[in-house]
């Protein structure tokens, strides 16, 4: 899903960059000093895990692969505002250090993989939890659904951006159907990886899953470290 340079013209690329800069600025402001010593390290861990997991392309159809985007996963694990920062870090490092995704396309790539997925993932997760019982298995199921929908949503964002600023002549309808279609398949992989990851952390430290916190009974306060005053 990393778009190279040259596909989309400068105005749309710059516009996406401005949108991303605004979203990152608001996210930074919203999250400064907002996490305690238990949850703050999760943001870095989620960034590292998503960076690693994105390297695994899995086959989806003849001659086609897909990989995790991770926006929905990050949103559920650390909340949407921190997730925007996490995804910006991941997609930024991929482009700047590993030349994966273009440099002038960086705004568009962060927008699609790091902001659209976070927003759609957050909304679908919240809506799904409204209708499900408030249990751990519901949280895993809602995570899978949110992750699944977030992928074609990111693909749709690309189609819109390409419609606005694509440099080649093309058939919009065919591109719409094929891009969204293949990303419905990739979304299944996204759903599986997201459900497994959320499930594993829920099973061990449910209190560290941001999306789960308000649905699960509060754990008893356990003080493990001795306090020396």
């Amino acid at each position: 899903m990393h778009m190279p340079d040259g596909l989309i013209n400068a105005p749309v690329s710059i516009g996406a960059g401005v949108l991303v800069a605004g979203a990152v600025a608001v996210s930074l402001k919203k999250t400064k000093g907002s996490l305690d010593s238990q949850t703050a390290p999760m943001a870095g861990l989620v960034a590292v895990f998503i960076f690693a997991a994105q390297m695994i392309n899995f086959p989806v159809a003849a001659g086609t692969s897909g990989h995790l985007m991770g926006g929905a996963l990050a949103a559920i694990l650390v909340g949407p505002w921190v997730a925007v920062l996490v995804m910006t870090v991941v997609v930024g490092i991929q482009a700047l250090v590993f030349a994966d995704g273009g440099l002038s396309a960086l705004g568009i790539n962060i927008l699609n993989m790091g902001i659209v997925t976070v927003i759609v993932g957050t909304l679908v997760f919240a809506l799904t939890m409204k209708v499900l019982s408030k249990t751990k298995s519901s949280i895993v199921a809602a995570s899978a659904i949110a992750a699944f929908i977030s992928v074609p949503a990111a693909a749709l964002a690309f189609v819109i951006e390409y419609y606005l600023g694509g440099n080649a002549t093309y058939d919009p309808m065919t591109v719409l159907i094929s891009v969204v279609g293949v990303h419905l398949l990739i979304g299944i992989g996204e759903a599986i990886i997201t459900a497994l990851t959320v499930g594993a952390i829920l099973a061990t430290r449910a209190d560290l899953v941001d999306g789960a916190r308000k649905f699960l009974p509060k754990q008893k306060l356990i003080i493990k470290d001795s306090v020396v005053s």
Partner: protein
Amino acid sequence: MSSKKLLVIGLLASIVIAGFLSFYASSHPDGLEKVSADQGLDVTAVDSANADSALADYGVAGVENERASAFLGGVIGVAITGLAGVGLYVWLREPKSAETK
């Protein structure tokens, strides 16, 4: 499980995924690349300005062995992302004075 233990397990899993499993990832184009090629969107694509950089495409320039190159690329990526994660931690963690209140 302590959060420290979870952190260590998560990091180790990420190193295994990025360093070892990535070697076995599908080398077929991803969904967007495939459609771009099929529909002719990629005719205007240009290489990124840093396409020739030492770590381009998650390998390490000069390391002949493909497996070693992929391993190093993955582990370096985990390390760099981890450093950025430390930055995130510093930004996100509430001030000490607030915690002792």
